[in-house]
């Protein structure tokens, strides 16, 4: 930007660029919008950001964001502590919750192993997961990382790590989507579903 903006305006534009998918152009648009059309919204945004930064931390048990030492879900007596589902992000955890198919507890990795991005197991801080799994209640760990290469690499590493400690490990299944017609399924998914076919119970 060769235009001479006041320093505080430039600082705002620069700060907005830290958002994922926001480049200089979008950042400038957002800054003008906030300052010109929605000063109240801007005030709220600023306060909410500062508030979240001071109030939120990682749950001591599941690693997701929470205001307390341990989050509500981890404390709930209705959840079954024997199964622990490992996901990459809080968004993934919310998706799992929406299924209403799982009543166990979670562990959120807040990332994944991606060797070519310099993200190894060390950067994931897996000590906390190991501590969590060693609580004497967990019997099975369900690996629900993505079915990308990185998600698979993460699942493999975790399964080796957990099996070495004698914990039962499983991986969520993949295949044809529910209600999916073969005609419209992508060939990669179809090929893998064929390779991972299973016997039909009588």
């Amino acid at each position, binding site marked *: 930007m060769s235009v001479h903006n006041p320093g505080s305006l430039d600082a705002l534009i620069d700060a907005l660029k830290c958002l994922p*998918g*926001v*480049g200089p152009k*979008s950042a400038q648009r957002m800054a003008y919008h906030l300052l010109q059309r929605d000063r109240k919204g801007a005030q709220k945004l600023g306060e909410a950001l500062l508030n979240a930064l001071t109030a939120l931390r990682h749950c001591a048990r599941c690693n997701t964001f929470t205001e307390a030492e341990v989050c509500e879900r981890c404390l709930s007596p209705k959840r079954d502590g024997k199964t622990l589902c490992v996901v990459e992000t809080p968004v993934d955890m919310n998706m799992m919750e929406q299924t209403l198919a799982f009543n166990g507890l979670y562990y959120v990795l807040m990332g994944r*192993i991606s*060797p*070519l*991005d*310099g993200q*190894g*197991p*060390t950067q994931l801080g897996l000590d906390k997961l190991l501590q969590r799994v060693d609580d004497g209640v967990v019997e099975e760990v369900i690996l629900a990382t993505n079915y*990308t*290469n990185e998600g*698979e*690499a993460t699942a*493999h*590493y975790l399964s*080796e*790590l957990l099996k*070495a400690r004698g914990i039962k490990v499983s991986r969520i299944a993949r295949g044809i989507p529910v209600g999916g017609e073969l005609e419209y399924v*992508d*060939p*990669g998914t179809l*090929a*893998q579903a064929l*390779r991972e076919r299973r016997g039909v119970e009588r």
Partner: protein
Amino acid sequence: MHRGKVDGQPAYILHTYPFRETSLIVEAFSRDFGRVALVARGARRPRSPIRGLLMAFQPVELAWSGKGEVLTLMKAEWVGGQPLLGGHALFCGYYLNELLLNLLPREDAHERLFLAYAQTLRRFAEGVQEADLRRFEKALLQELGYGLWLTEDADGKPVAEEGWYAYEIERGPVRLARQGQSPLCISGRALLALARDDFAEPRLLAEAKQLMRALMAHYLGGETLETRRIFKELQEL
């Protein structure tokens, strides 16, 4: 040479990383144009149809066009025939890609290396053999012109089965009076086995591994591969 349009080009994705607001830079290894960097516009938008196709270790056919410095990915098509890699094979795949990203120069065609890479991935899908890794490393050094002297020593004499050698990088094996201690000390038997791609004997395979590790470390200029670090961590579990 390929400024303009390329269509239906067999390739593998080596790596992708975010570019601008919604795009990706795709590092691909293509059969006829070697390693190319392509911009996949909009590939990071939710539900982008191309996103799932830009997956490493799967054969694809790419179309791109370009003026000036930037090549734009126009199309990616799934080819099939390669099972997805999982477990240890996946980390070995990352190892190949990390080697290629570090050692393969851009836009330099290496068809034989491309075929060796494709074959290695297919073998990985059936379970990784140490020999497959050695074969690929050898192909990489030979195809990139780094030179690998296995049947003749540095003095031009044929390598002797019963001899011991100190492998000097850029020069070749130098005959020793007896077995030495350096990591680049290797038996004539192992050199000749490596030349023949004969990895039946575990002891010779271990010697070949040590030589290849030293050579890779040299050509990588002291950079430690992330995959190598993870291999170590996995072994220590």
